[in-house]
């Protein structure tokens, strides 16, 4: 009898265990049930045309799919088209949209538990919701964007209403939560999430510390301008309406407490390329525009490819799931694309809080603060309360309750351009509908943050580039360092004066995250700029020939290592007189014979990457000393210029040795280290070494791929590095009819069980393109 009772209890307990989720363990019974669980996500490849006739639509909307599962939306008005775009976003990417907005608003802990609490606090301290609320208000107050954002919200909610418990997307089952209704604020959060990704990273703390530690070397290590530059605006020396700058604020920065977590960081690896060729530089005589934004190679992809056809526009390109309209693309008349501008639009100010925290003091001025108590709900725990203080001009990002590591006991106010109530959606809508250069310029006037280099080409023959955003008039060294005096007021730069060029004499415009303007431009600005891809692209496009679409594809997938080409011969020169071991000679020979092409199966890029990495460590680590974890290595191009310019630069001397090292000694030491490491690599190829991976947002390894066989890498035009790379490649040729090609790293569906989840990966890795089907209204008749 007892055995029966025990057996019954055990059976019941097993059923209960399988029915509910326990911490990170999902409800397994429901998950594996073929009637309601993961098997509902086993999509079959169907490309059937669809007609939608929801009550909220004014007229029926038709959707045709091409073989890549790209929807071509045909509607009788723009609002209906946006409604269906939103519906399809939700149908294919709902979990991604949900999680991204949760991340942006500091609400991940509600579904992920304690492990994301610090991330949530950080996002809230950045004022992401504050920024999104301001922008959402602006979008809803504008007569053009308001109906669009409302239609978009309705479209997403239409899909959410149709969802029942038996058909939840797989990730919801694994994380055991359900989607909540979409709101305009969530769209605002999506746009601010991108602003944070692209303009949220600054080096104010690192550079303040570096300036304090190396006052004599700072300008050489972290120069505002490199010796060799290829500015975005090639004809940028005749600026008007700019102020001459003067030196100010060299007050010492109080040193932080040292921390010892990790090595000094490198500058962020993400970047992008775009360019446009005028008809005079193409074989056909028609302009060509290319763009490949480099972003984290996440799954699902950050982009969703689609075409919207309605009386107001016929536009093709990629949209951001969670926001309406096409972000990068082309229409019948124009094409446009983006690269990150990287100009610094985020400032930090060290302030002293008063006892009651009702004000803080900055440079003899008391700034009133408004306290807001944020409640962070945590799965399986009690809510966490965090008080965040807002000033009229910023937000108290770090204080005693949320200190910056190493800066405990100090308070910092942050001011960020993204906090302004800008309406970037209006800019996107304008670009989607623009017919010519003037409409393009008019459209981008509402694009304030993040700073973007917006390339343009038109069927009429125009090409152009605007380095666009809302910038700030600054006095050096404002904005570059944590400020301890001055004032919080920003004088905004008139957007009409933003750097730009139209139809330049050289026949092309180009940007690749490099410096915006020539060093002769007297305007002071700072940012994180890189020049190596700009140099390579400039060299490619400056060749004395006329280009085809195939050339453009070849350039976008170019594997030439510009930095290696510029410094490796010098490094080899430093080590050539020494008698190396036979194995070391083999490494040297492979480096000497290298053509600087980072082919996936090559090994020389591994040796160069290791060698240069060790060299940087030898040059800087002993000088960085106890602040190694809190400093950032100089730009690689700055290091290269320094090595070539002064082989006896004082920083090259290793502090812990009695000898006086020069660059030759460091090259030798670094080469030996490289050989030791290379001996352990067991015939690894370049692609295995850099391990380009596409990872699911949930970080579930089973939903991603690692070790993708692709060349390129950090600093290379085909920038496929470990987890970042070309998130979308587009080539648009304004022939008649328009000829366009695209590619990205995953697929249209966000469902790991769909045939269209990762169907493009191998073509992307091999540098193949799909020809875009740019449909016309008559294709739907």
């Amino acid at each position, binding site marked *: 009898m007892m055995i029966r009772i025990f*057996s*019954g209890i055990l059976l019941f307990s097993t059923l209960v265990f399988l029915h509910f989720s326990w911490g990170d363990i999902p409800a397994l019974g429901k998950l594996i049930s*073929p*009637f309601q669980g993961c*098997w509902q996500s086993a*999509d079959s*490849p169907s490309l059937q045309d669809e007609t939608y006739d929801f009550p909220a639509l004014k007229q029926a909307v038709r959707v045709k799919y091409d073989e890549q599962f790209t929807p071509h939306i045909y509607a009788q008005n723009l609002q209906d088209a946006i409604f269906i775009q939103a519906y399809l976003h939700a149908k294919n990417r709902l979990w991604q949209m949900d999680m991204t907005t949760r991340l942006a608003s500091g609400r991940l802990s509600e579904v992920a538990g304690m492990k994301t609490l610090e991330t949530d606090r950080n996002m809230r301290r950045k004022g992401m919701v504050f920024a999104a609320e301001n922008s959402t208000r602006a979008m809803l107050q504008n007569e053009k964007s308001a109906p669009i954002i409302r239609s978009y919200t309705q479209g997403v909610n239409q899909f959410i209403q149709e969802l029942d418990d038996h058909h939840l997307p797989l990730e919801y089952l694994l994380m055991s939560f359900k989607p909540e209704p979409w709101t305009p604020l969530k769209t605002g959060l999506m746009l601010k999430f991108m602003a944070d990704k692209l303009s949220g990273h600054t080096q104010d703390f690192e550079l303040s510390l570096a300036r304090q530690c190396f006052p004599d070397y700072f300008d050489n290590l972290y120069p505002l301008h490199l010796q060799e530059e290829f500015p975005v605006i090639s004809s940028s020396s005749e600026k008007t309406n700019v102020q001459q700058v003067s030196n100010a604020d060299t007050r010492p920065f109080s040193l932080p407490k040292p921390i010892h977590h990790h090595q000094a960081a490198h500058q962020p690896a993400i970047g992008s390329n775009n360019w446009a060729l005028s008809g005079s530089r193409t074989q056909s005589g028609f302009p060509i525009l290319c763009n490949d934004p480099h972003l984290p190679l996440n799954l699902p992809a950050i982009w969703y490819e689609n075409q919207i056809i309605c009386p107001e526009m016929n536009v093709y390109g990629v949209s951001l799931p969670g926001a309406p309209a096409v972000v990068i693309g082309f229409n019948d008349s124009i094409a446009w694309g983006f690269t990150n501008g990287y100009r610094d639009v985020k400032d930090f100010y060290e302030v002293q809080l008063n006892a009651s925290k009702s004000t803080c003091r900055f440079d003899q001025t008391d700034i009133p603060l408004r306290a807001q108590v944020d409640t962070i709900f945590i799965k399986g725990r009690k809510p966490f309360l965090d008080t965040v203080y807002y000033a009229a001009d910023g937000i108290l990002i770090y204080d005693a309750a949320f200190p910056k590591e190493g800066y405990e006991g100090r308070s910092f106010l942050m001011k960020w351009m993204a906090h302004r109530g800008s309406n970037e959606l209006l800019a996107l809508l304008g670009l989607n509908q623009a017919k010519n250069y003037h409409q393009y310029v008019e459209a981008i006037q509402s694009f304030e943050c993040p700073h973007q280099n917006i390339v343009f080409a038109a069927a009429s023959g125009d090409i152009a580039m605007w380095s666009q955003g809302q910038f700030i008039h600054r006095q050096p060294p404002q904005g570059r360092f944590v400020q301890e005096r001055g004032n919080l007021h920003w004088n905004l730069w008139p957007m009409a004066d933003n750097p730009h060029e139209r139809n330049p004499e050289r026949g092309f415009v180009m940007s690749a995250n490099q410096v915006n303007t020539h060093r002769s431009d007297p305007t002071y600005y700072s940012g994180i700029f890189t020049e190596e891809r700009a140099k390579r692209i400039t060299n490619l496009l400056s060749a004395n020939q006329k280009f085809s679409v195939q050339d453009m594809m070849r350039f976008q997938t170019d594997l030439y290592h510009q930095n290696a080409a510029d410094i490796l011969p010098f490094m080899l020169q430093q080590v050539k007189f020494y008698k190396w071991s036979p194995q070391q000679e083999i490494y040297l020979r492979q480096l000497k014979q290298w053509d600087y092409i980072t082919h996936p199966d090559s090994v020389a890029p591994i040796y160069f990457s290791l060698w240069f990495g060790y060299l940087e460590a030898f040059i800087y680590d002993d000088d960085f000393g106890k602040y190694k974890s809190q400093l950032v290595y100089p730009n690689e191009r700055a290091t290269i210029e320094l090595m070539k310019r002064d082989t006896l630069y004082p920083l090259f001397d290793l502090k812990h040795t009695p000898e006086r090292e020069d660059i030759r000694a460091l090259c030798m030491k670094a080469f030996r280290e490289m050989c030791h490491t290379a001996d352990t690599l067991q015939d690894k190829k370049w692609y295995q070494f850099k391990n380009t991976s596409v990872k699911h947002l949930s970080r*579930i390894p089973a939903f991603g791929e690692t070790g993708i066989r692709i060349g390129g890498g950090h600093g290379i035009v085909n920038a496929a590095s470990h987890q970042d790379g070309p998130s979308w490649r587009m080539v648009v040729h304004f022939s008649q009819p328009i000829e366009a090609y695209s590619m990205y790293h995953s697929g249209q569906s966000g469902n*790991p*069980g769909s045939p269209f989840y990762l169907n493009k990966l191998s073509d992307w890795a091999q540098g193949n393109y799909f020809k875009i089907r740019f449909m016309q209204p008559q294709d739907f008749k």
Partner: protein
Amino acid sequence: MITMKNVLMILGLSALNFLFSLYTQWWIFVPLVILWVALFQIPRSRSVLSGMAIALSWLTMILFRDIPNQHILSTRMANLFGLKGNYILFIGFNVFIPFLLATWTAYLSATITVTKDPVPKKR
């Protein structure tokens, strides 16, 4: 023993579970098996038939989803469950769970509701 009666029993319970599972919770086979055993006085020695019936209904639905999907989802789930991408193993695991639970339920139910096991017929 494979008899027509056993086959019909399996098919009947399987069809019933299939139907109910479409509209209710995944554990619906538990009360179904209890009722089935009580109603037809199925002895403990034949508990495994109930397990087979439920497993069959799950397998049918799985194949209905998996074959058109070309095993994409099952392969990913197999990776997720540490089965090295072997979708057959994942399907086997997926069917074994309801088989085990249904057999267990039938056995317990028979212990309580069925008076005794039938005596095997002499030849």
